[in-house]
């Protein structure tokens, strides 16, 4: 599968990584919903690092769509909260 970290790059990950990614994201979501800013920073950092470490960067001249797009690394806690309330990072 191909995962993009927004504002950074696309990475190709083995399909078997999906379960772990899901786990990491669930932890992230629960930190944001629980209003735990430190937990959010830790979980989000872990999720991005996992993709960077386990993935291979997709060359710039390859035209592939991503299966998953992660928010940019400088996402703030407040922005993460807005993602859930529907405003989102990109206006619809």
């Amino acid at each position, binding site marked *: 599968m191909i995962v993009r970290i927004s504002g950074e790059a696309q990475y190709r990950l083995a399909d078997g990584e999906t379960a772990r990614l899901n786990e990491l994201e669930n932890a992230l979501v629960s930190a944001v919903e629980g209003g735990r800013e430190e937990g959010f920073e830790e979980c989000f950092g872990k999720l991005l690092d996992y993709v960077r470490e386990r993935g291979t960067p997709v060359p710039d001249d390859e*035209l592939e*769509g*991503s299966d998953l*797009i992660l928010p940019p690394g400088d996402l703030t806690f407040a922005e993460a909260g807005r993602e859930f309330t529907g405003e989102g*990072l*990109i206006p619809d």
Partner: protein
Amino acid sequence: MAGLTGRLSTVVKAKVSKLLDRAEDPAETLDYSYQRQVEQLQNVKKGIADVVTAKKRLQMQESSLQQSVVKLDTQARQAVSQGKEDLARTALERKNVAQTELQSLDTQVSELEAQQEKLTDSEKQLRAKIEAFRTKKEVIKAQYSAAEAQVRISEAATGVGEQMADVGLAMQRAVDKTENMKARADAVSELEQAGTFDDLTALGSGEDDIDQQLKQLSSKSAVDDELAKMKGEIGQGGADAAQIPAGDAKQPSESGQA
């Protein structure tokens, strides 16, 4: 993944498919897409130029504030040596405000530096993808039937479209950050224009509104400490120091001038 990440993926995909809906004829779709991509690349270049301009403005403001800090420090020392404690206090309060602004400007300049770097990387990625698309579009036009071509176009355009949406997001974030900084920079400009950091001797005696406001802005204890320190230093110089006329005082090489 329905949470944070799923939403962003969905929105980007919707944007990409909107791009592809435009034309019936595959060749037309290809050329239209390519044209849009080149336009977007121009926008990114303009976005980077805006960030650079904002950064330069902040840097100019920094250097003018740095000069004010040195000047106010000198004036405070002169005032102390002449026994004018009130004037010294006012100068130190203003210096304190200028220094706080300087620190904040420093952070903002680094932030803009990071935005500039990110946008430059994104622009490079987008340029590479557009170039790959240009090559691919000629192959698709030459080799495939209309039905097959639609599929190939959609594949190729997805990759570029996603990159475009992503650069768009990065630009929006950079613009938002720059706007916040502009507002702050404007506030500092207003202080400067009001003469806040100007020559205190030109103000005459008595406090004006600015002084009242500055007292609230600057940290009282920091000003008290610095004033006490200055008095100690200058007091050691003995009676001679008090004889130095305003504007002629030697500038002591103390740390507080940074």
